[in-house]
């Protein structure tokens, strides 16, 4: 996986809370069996509205999405993360996320960071006033910087290390294969198996 350290880019203000995964990518777009090519599906239903922020010329180049709280609640569809990445987003800033979405984002190198509501509101205002404003999301220093201001964010140490090193989970886990095998040899015999009965 590509190593993630810091990203700087312009931002798109999405003044909404509870942007669920069905909005990020509606179910009809989940039928594809590939991992890429979802850019047209991102916010597909809202994009019919010409006033929707994604349709505004000012924000077409944005690579940082700034959203309200509970971003990405709902389903486990990793397609939501793939769609955001395919469209060109590298980072998301929101007060809080749906758990599964957050986990998925970090597995795909989409940097999702949490800032308090006040910071998000300040950033919305600043970006709307000046869409060319550049925002830096710095995983190394664990801070967001814009217009001379700095906000720190918390980030799980292990997830951060994995992202910065570009490590993939399966290889990491397989380093402990002997322990997995030991655990397996010790499982109770009555545990169910899916083999046909």
């Amino acid at each position, binding site marked *: 996986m590509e190593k993630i350290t810091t990203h700087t880019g312009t931002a798109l203000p999405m003044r909404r809370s509870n942007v669920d995964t069905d909005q990020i990518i509606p179910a009809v777009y989940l039928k594809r069996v590939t991992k890429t090519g979802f850019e047209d599906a991102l916010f597909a239903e809202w994009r019919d509205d010409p006033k929707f922020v994604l349709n505004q010329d000012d924000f077409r180049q944005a690579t940082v999405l700034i959203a309200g709280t509970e971003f990405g609640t709902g389903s486990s569809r990793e397609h939501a993360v793939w769609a955001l990445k395919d469209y060109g987003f590298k980072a998301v800033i929101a007060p809080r996320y749906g758990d599964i979405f957050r986990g998925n984002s970090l597995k795909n190198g989409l940097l999702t960071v949490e800032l308090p*509501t006040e910071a998000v509101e300040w950033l919305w205002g600043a970006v709307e006033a000046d869409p060319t404003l550049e925002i830096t999301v710095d995983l190394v220093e664990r801070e967001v910087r814009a217009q001379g201001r700095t906000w720190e964010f918390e980030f799980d140490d*292990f997830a951060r290390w994995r992202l910065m090193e570009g490590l993939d989970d*399966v290889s990491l886990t397989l380093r402990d294969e002997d322990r997995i095998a030991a655990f397996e040899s010790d499982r109770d015999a009555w545990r169910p198996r899916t083999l046909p009965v």
Partner: protein
Amino acid sequence: MSRTPQTAEGTRPRTLAEKVWDDHVVRTGGDQPDLLYIDLHLLHEVTSPQAFDGLRQAGRKVRRTDLTIATEDHNTPTDNLFTIADPTSRKQIETLRANCEEFGVRIHSLGDAEQGVVHVVGPQLGLTQPGMTVVCGDSHTSTHGAFGSIAFGIGTSEVEHVLATQTLPQAKPKTMAVTVNGSLPEGVSAKDLILKIISITGTGGGKGHIVEYRGQAIEELSMEGRMTVCNMSIEWGAKAGMIAPDEKTFAYVQGRPHAPQGEDWDAAVEYWKGLGTDAGAEFDREIVIDAAELSPFVTWGTNPGQGVELSGAVPDPVSLDDPAERSAAENALKYMGLEAGTPMRQVDVDVVFLGSCTNGRIEDLRTAAEVIKGRKVADGVDMMVVPGSARVREQAIQEGLDQVFIEAGADWRFAGCSMCLGMNPDQLTPGQRAASTSNRNFEGRQGKGGRTHLVSPAVAAATAVAGHLAGPADL
């Protein structure tokens, strides 16, 4: 080292969740999250193709095909058994079949008695048992927590990880108790209870926690009811929902195809009996609810936390203090085409959907059939009944429930996810309003522009007859 759920004397009392967790830890400590062993991995066509691709690219196998099982549900047709008209839907199902064949995974395809919504199939086969870890690339995996297992939804990268290693690295969540004291009043169901809980906590209230539902009202629920409650844990953001296994749980599991037998059964039950939360164990948080105060509950908005009593009215956003909630409510009312102050019972519907992994089990069909028996679906209302699995459908037919629905004028369908998410042709058209026994009322969830009110099976049936949101007592 033999595992036991009994907490050693002199050590800290533990919760149900901690016991199940502790017994599945492959590796702990250091700066990495715990590595958990996974007892059961459920697959369906939507979230698995890219995971199998990943395995192929890395030249890996499925580590434990004997702990893995697949079914077809999200894209399946419900108006006929075999013909998937949409080529992309068909391709996805065919891809799952090919992957299962290539990697040696058991699959239940269309036409098979065990085909159906993945969370209905696991319990009906007896594969879901107490004290397990269960995962699936689907957020409603929390359903299986009703048996006293840790069960949660995962993304496609994690699906690949479990296929390759049968484990998952997981940070240990906090624990929370939702204690429901007293008995549910007559006519109040598990669905009403969970909708009420979500309206109290909001969509993010359970974040980072494994929730244990407990108390008299929970103990009194059937296994189906417990599954309904645990199913919607994700709708208030919880990592998982669980209920301590008891005699009801054991009776439900016993005799199913994959239940332990003979001596194995005795060993399993002994283990299961030790799983309950120890006296004196502490939860990180607790919510207490008085069951006696509950009544049928429905949603008015576009997230499952936006709910109100059926006897209530559409709330006025102005009455909400929190600015984010207020603007969410304003958006929701606009999308839903509702005026503040309208009594919920005056909300007319076009469609009634009975089904899904929340309320598509046999008991749900029985409850709805009882309400609708001898009555007619109102003019201008389409009622669609979609059993959770082919086996549920069979059983319903044996009990004559299909005839009850058909005589009432409802549409009796084949099993699948159907209108719960509208990946197949079962979708609302723009502006159509549905009363739905599913779990999500998100914008467009059941079809572009469609408007969803989440309800219990009894309210769904009564609504179909009345033509507006209603309970059985209103008929």
